């Protein structure tokens, strides 16, 4: 555990903190100091304003015209909508039975009854799909709110998770409060998995001891969020790893680590 910083020491480290150039130990010390010091937090905001101005003063370039439509298409295929949207659209576009005038009245009635029954079933199914989608969206929003709460919590600490493979873009960020068992995991560029597979989080300590941190899936872009409630406070854990496992989870890791890090 690093020694607490004085305000002078903290202020000296603020530019490095903003430029993401601090070593983990120093980052932890600055984050802890900022959580209790209004003066240094105000200094941080002032430096941040300078960097914001630098970022806005660059030579302006027009983004490619096709990026706009590409973005909107990607947004429409977003994680909360992807699993159900295609089916939803397909159901709405099903042709409806239309009895012809030449059919016998009895046959027409039978067809009409079948059509009404089919239509009712479709409406109920659509309603169930919409309800499911609404629940998915609410769940995602709740996760994102928790993530944001942790990001902005003064005592929150980020743990970067990386792949051991140099050519992999997979990465993650675990946001935690050291004395708390709750954390939020955000991952990016993890390969999407088939329906019967999922990613599982492992929280390790000691020689080979570990707890299950939960199971999650990623969207088509490899983005995923998981709200973790660990069996113990995060001060206990010395390692975090993510492996690919069966969708229902596994009692222990059965595949190589995809990404990992040290709290």
């Amino acid at each position: 555990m690093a020694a607490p910083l004085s305000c002078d020491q903290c202020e000296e480290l603020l530019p490095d903190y903003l430029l993401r150039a601090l070593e983990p130990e120093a980052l932890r010390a600055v984050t802890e100091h900022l959580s209790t010091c209004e003066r240094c937090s105000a200094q941080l905001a002032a430096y941040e304003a300078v960097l914001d101005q630098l970022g806005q003063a660059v030579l302006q370039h027009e983004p490619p015209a096709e990026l706009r439509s590409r973005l909107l298409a990607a947004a429409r295929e977003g994680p909360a909508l992807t699993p159900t949207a295609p089916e939803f659209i397909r159901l709405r576009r099903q042709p409806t039975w239309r009895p012809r005038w030449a059919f016998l009245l009895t046959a027409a009635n039978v067809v009409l009854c079948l059509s009404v029954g089919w239509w009712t079933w479709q409406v109920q199914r659509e309603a169930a799909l919409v309800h499911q989608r609404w629940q998915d969206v609410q769940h995602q929003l709740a996760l994102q709110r928790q993530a944001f709460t942790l990001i902005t919590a003064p005592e929150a600490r980020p743990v970067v998770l990386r792949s051991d493979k140099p050519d992999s873009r997979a990465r993650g960020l675990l946001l935690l409060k050291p004395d708390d068992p709750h954390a939020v995991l955000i991952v990016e560029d993890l390969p999407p998995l088939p329906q019967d597979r999922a990613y599982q989080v492992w929280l390790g300590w000691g020689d080979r001891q570990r707890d299950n941190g939960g199971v999650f899936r990623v969207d088509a872009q490899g983005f995923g969020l998981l709200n973790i409630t660990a069996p113990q406070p995060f001060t206990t854990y010395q390692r975090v790893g993510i492996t690919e496992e069966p969708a229902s989870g596994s009692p222990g890791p059965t595949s190589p680590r995809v990404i990992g890090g040290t709290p």
Partner: protein
Amino acid sequence: MDDAYPTDATLLARMAHRDPKALDTFYMRHARAVFSLAMTMFKEHTRATDLTQEVFLLVWQSAGAYQPTGSARAWLLRLTRNRAIDELRRDRRRLANETVLPQQALHALSAPVALADAAERQAVRDALAALPAEQRDALFLAFFQGLSHQEIATRLRTPLGTIKARIRRALQTLRQQLQGEQGH
């Protein structure tokens, strides 16, 4: 007024309810700034395009969690900068192929066409021009190229402690200059 020109906060709230028109308006309002910063940092059209899309998709996915504490554009550019820095630092091949010098990066900021239409940009240019060259170079390498302080020290063949001090002093000076400008 609100319908004709919705605020960024309104657009973000609508995005949280999955309104793609709000994303479209938000994109049209800020895409140029995001793409320009990405271009300055990556110097590659394809990577800048990909990062711009990534940033706006992230906003789309997390709009409900956004709680405004400053301008949305500053928030977007911070997101862009941080992701670009992380990506640049991961890109180990960059060190072998890198040819851009701080002076070229400075050109990206000081080109008149970029700054003529904004008093704030002019103020930034003046403040940067007033910095000692060695402080400006170190700051540019850290800010626009995502180099760690150790990498800058190696590149400029200067002790690490000196690089840290230069960056710190550059930011302190800019802060005094720019906040002084705003105060008038």
